């Protein structure tokens, strides 16, 4: 239900980053979304297209990488992926495991931009730091 606010936050972050690359166009935004992030991808895709319509980000693809839940089992001393989000037990020993190591992510991994030839070297301050 909050996919619209999430789409708006992505637009804000991407616009901020892309501003450092004069003349560039954003062609894709890559996200990492944990299985527990409570984000419905279809809904996010829809909100993304609506939010970016008529803006410089229009047409940019939203690539979502799903991150499964990983728990840490103290007994086995391992980090292990659990099958879904309905049970938080170590897949090796079956013990309940409350120590979550992955699965809550809701982050922008990277953006893919297209720059006109020759302009690629015109770095702004932001780009110099990278």
């Amino acid at each position, binding site marked *: 239900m909050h996919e619209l606010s999430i789409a708006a936050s992505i637009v804000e972050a991407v616009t901020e980053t892309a501003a450092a690359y004069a003349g560039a166009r954003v062609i894709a935004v890559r996200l990492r979304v944990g299985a527990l992030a*409570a984000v419905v991808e279809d809904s996010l895709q829809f909100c993304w297209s609506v939010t970016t319509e008529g803006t410089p980000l229009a047409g940019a693809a939203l690539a979502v990488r799903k991150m499964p839940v990983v728990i840490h089992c103290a007994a086995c001393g391992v980090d292990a992926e659990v099958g879904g989000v*309905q049970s938080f037990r170590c897949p090796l020993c079956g013990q309940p495991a409350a120590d979550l190591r992955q699965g809550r992510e809701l*982050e922008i991994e990277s*953006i*893919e931009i297209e*720059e006109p030839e020759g302009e690629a070297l015109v770095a702004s301050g932001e780009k110099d730091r990278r």
Partner: protein
Amino acid sequence: MTTRIVELRRGILKKNDELAAGLRARFHAAGVLVLNLVSSPGTGKTALLERTLRELLARGFRAAALVGDLATDNDARRLAASGAPVRQINTHGICHLDAEMIGKHLEGWDSLGAVGAMPSSRIAAAMNGSPAESAAAVATGAHLAALDFLFIENVGNLVCPSSYDLGEGIRVALLSVTEGEDKPLKYPTLFNSADAAVITKIDIAGPCGFDRELALRNMNEIRPGIRIFETSAKTGAGMEEWLEYLSSECTGRR
């Protein structure tokens, strides 16, 4: 044309997370225990809080509340009757509270002034004003550092509030006996992010055919070891244990 990948590795809700971290530091410095109550609409958040505020004040604790709803100040009115300082947050269509709303509605609560039970005449006067005025008036006298507890009642929603950190110390997920024992399995994000859970309306568990064992098992499946309370805001059943937990968490954090 050349393409390039620019690494960001930035949380989408970074702005909220940063604001929440600021709030958490502020609450910690003020020595106030903050609880964020989340559940679906109608689970009984306000009913539990009404009773909780009343009982805490009667035991000499100082408590205040912020309450989020899409619209109306009904819940703030109900809670203010306890005598505790209360502010209503209307989200105007937004399905959850976020850290910015909390920060905004705490304005003035850092200033000096004693927190105490407000005379009911003042509540009545405050409540006759516009919602904005009444919120300001009811809040008069609140001061974070003079509080033991600040309760935040979130917007009734089992999905969205789980993603937004409000700087709380304890997140409490509520489930009523009328909602079905499988809700923790259907809304794992919310129950997994909770520090404690309350099963509400246990006075009507019988007629609802509520399967207590199954509900407890499901909660433990999603959040192993979670502390679970069972209460009735109607009869007061289970309130003692809940209040005991609150006071021990409060003194434990001092």
